[in-house]
C-alpha cells in the first residue's frame, strides 16, 4: 500500500524553538507539498518541491523553510516557532506531470506551540 508518512501525529513545542516536521513517501513521486489547515481558512500551501533540492514558495511561506535532500523526504522547518503556527500540517505528494492522479496525503501533524 503506497504511503505518505508524517513522523509525528501530535507535537507540542515552546515558543522560539526550532521545529522539524518530517514527511516520507514511498511512491517515487517527484512533487511534494506542505499545507497547513486551520478552521475557516481551509488548506493553505506553505511550500512545495518539484524534485530533489528544488523548492518553491507557496501562499504562506513566512516563518517556514523546507529541505528536500532526498527524493522521498520533504522536511518543513519552523525556524522559531510562534503561537500563530499552531495548526494541522499536512504533507502530500504527487507524480510529476500527473495532475489527474491527485494527491496522496499523510495523516497530518497537529502542532501546538505554547
Amino acid at each position, binding site marked *: 500500500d503506497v504511503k505518505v508518512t508524517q513522523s509525528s501525529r501530535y507535537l507540542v513545542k515552546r515558543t522560539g524553538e526550532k521545529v522539524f516536521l518530517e514527511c516520507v513517501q514511498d511512491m517515487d513521486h517527484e512533487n511534494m507539498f506542505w499545507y497547513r489547515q486551520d478552521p475557516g481558512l*481551509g488548506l493553505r500551501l506553505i511550500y512545495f518541491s518539484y524534485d530533489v533540492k528544488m523548492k518553491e514558495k507557496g501562499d504562506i511561506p513566512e516563518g517556514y523553510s523546507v529541505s528536500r535532500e532526498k527524493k522521498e523526504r520533504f522536511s518543513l522547518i519552523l525556524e522559531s516557532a510562534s503561537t500563530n503556527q499552531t495548526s494541522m500540517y499536512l504533507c502530500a505528494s504527487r507524480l510529476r506531470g500527473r*495532475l*489527474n492522479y491527485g*494527491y496522496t496525503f499523510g495523516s*497530518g501533524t*497537529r502542532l501546538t506551540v505554547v
Partner: protein
Amino acid sequence: AQSVTQLDSHVSVSEGTPVLLRCNYSSSYSPSLFWYVQHPNKGLQLLLKYTSAATLVKGINGFEAEFKKSETSFHLTKPSAHMSDAAEYFCVVSVRGFKTIFGAGTRLFVKA
C-alpha cells in the same frame, strides 16, 4: 484563473437517506476535478476524480459525482448515508500549469 466554491459549509442527513454535497468551479481551461474526504484528525483521502473521460465518476464507499460543464458543477452524491460517512469533504480543481485550488470544505453530519 481557477476557483472552487463549496456551496454548503455544513450538511446534515439521516442515516439511510441520500447525500448531496455541492461544488461549483471556475476554470479557463479543462480542469481535473477531485473530491477528498477527511475524517477527524486524519489526512485527506481521495474519493474520486474527473479527468475529461466519463462525466459520471464513481468513487470509493458508494460515492459518485457528475461533471456538468454547462453548470460548472461537480456535485458529490451517495444514495444512502452511513454513520461512517460523517467527515469533512473537499472539492478540488487542478489545471496544468496552475496552482491546485481546494474548496473550503463541507462538513457532513449523519444522524442515527
